[in-house]
């Protein structure tokens, strides 16, 4: 019995050691830049939509940073997020594996029968942007070539980088991060959706100072420089 007691005590100790770290929910596309900016912060990187859904269902990180204005604004309206601010812009591009098995050299090639295109699922910002761009270009036939709707932009990049997909819609910054494995096809100006990233302090945070500091870090000079380094635009 005493042995069992000791075991439970050890468990309790293990669970409570260490000061609570700041917890940030952030869009997958921010992974590299955020981890460099604040290495000791606890990050959860996923699709902006999944993270927003988690916050709506009671998750309380300290900060939420999304690859869109939609979800931060929604959370703000629901009283879950303090005033979100725009801190970065990104550009939708087409990624092609370096080996380029399908011989893609322009957007038009994506419409060829048999080309395997991947994009984010509906509701995932990278997927919604891709769909609206294709609508703008009246290139519905590209949609017919979609073989997988990924749950976040990481899934898109991985499948292109592995050469499993012939092309995928992702962000300019993803292309920079995976430049060894992928090349980029730029979309025509008129089809480029306006992609603005917003960040905000989660209203239910128990470390408001830490959260505000993190937001200031990201929107300040150091944050802006780091963002631009990996291909983001800053407002």
């Amino acid at each position, binding site marked *: *019995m005493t042995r*069992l007691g000791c075991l439970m005590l050890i468990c309790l100790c293990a669970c409570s050691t260490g000061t609570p770290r700041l917890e940030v929910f952030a869009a997958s596309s921010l992974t590299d830049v955020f981890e460099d900016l604040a290495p000791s912060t606890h990050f959860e990187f996923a*699709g902006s*939509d*999944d993270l*927003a*859904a988690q916050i709506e269902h009671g998750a309380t990180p300290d900060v939420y940073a999304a690859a869109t204005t939609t979800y931060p604004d929604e959370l703000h309206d629901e009283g879950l997020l303090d005033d979100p601010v725009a801190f970065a812009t990104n550009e939708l591009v087409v990624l092609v594996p370096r*080996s380029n*098995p399908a011989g893609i050299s322009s957007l038009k090639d994506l419409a060829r029968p048999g080309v*395997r295109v*991947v994009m984010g*699922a*509906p*509701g995932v910002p990278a997927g919604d942007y891709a769909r609206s761009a294709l609508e703008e270009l009246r290139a519905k036939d590209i949609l017919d070539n*979609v*073989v*997988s*709707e*990924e*749950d976040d932009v990481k*899934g898109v990049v*991985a*499948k292109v980088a*592995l*050469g*499993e*997909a012939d092309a995928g819609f992702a962000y300019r910054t993803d292309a920079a991060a995976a430049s060894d494995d992928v090349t980029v096809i730029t979309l025509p100006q008129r089809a480029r959706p306006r992609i603005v990233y917003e960040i905000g302090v989660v209203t239910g945070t128990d470390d408001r100072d830490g959260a505000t500091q993190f937001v200031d870090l990201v929107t300040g000079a150091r944050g802006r420089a780091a963002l631009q380094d990996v291909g983001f635009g800053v407002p």
Partner: protein
Amino acid sequence: MRRGTALVFGALTCVALVFVALPLVALVVKTSPGALIRSLGDPAARNAALVSLKTSVIAHALILLVGTPAAYVVATRKFPGRAVAVAVMELPLVLPPAVAGIALLATFGRLGLLGHVLTVLNVDISFTQTAVVLAVAFVAFPFYVRQAVAAFESVDARFADAARTLGASPWRTFRRIALPLARPGLAAGSALAFARGLGEFGATIMFAGSFPGRTQTLPLAIYAQLDRNLDVAIAIGVVLIAISIVALIGVRLSTTWSSNSRSLVRSAT
């Protein structure tokens, strides 16, 4: 047991039960029968159910076809490397699903080990239902084979010996002696493997992607619907729980039969 010990053990048993049961109950009470049926009529759920059913049945057929003879050989023959063979077949059991996914990509993917061969043969596996079938078969296989080996091992070797001395061929011995006597164990393994295959997620999403009506299985649909339509996600979850319970009951029933029939055999000898 002393009174104090009994009390603590009882309390911890309750904690364990509540810990496992509560999330399942929560999922069920979060929906009403009406909403459940409505959500299951959603095209996303219907398509995913069809994909899951088709791929699981094919994968399961493959598992039974290949796994049964493999388990029989391993259980009844002594050969060098037997322990290694067993370990290899059981490996996916403890492998993280993501590892299974990346391993399948490294094998059957375009740039994978067999990629060139498959390209020459003009076979494209990734992003197809074939990929789903392979992922499901890969992760579910050991659940069947483990049980099947144990089932064949528990068959009294004297029956097979007797059959052979009476002139039965190896095939006849397998089909008329080993298979019927091992059947309850095989059924239990089969139910476990089917349930595990139906729940496959990690390897599928990495290897087959997720496309509604083609490669999006029920677990992938839960993930895809989580932020779009929570009701549909929950409804699919409830259905998968129901299937798991049926599978578990199947396992229980067949193992009970198994011990009954074995005691019958024993009392007959």
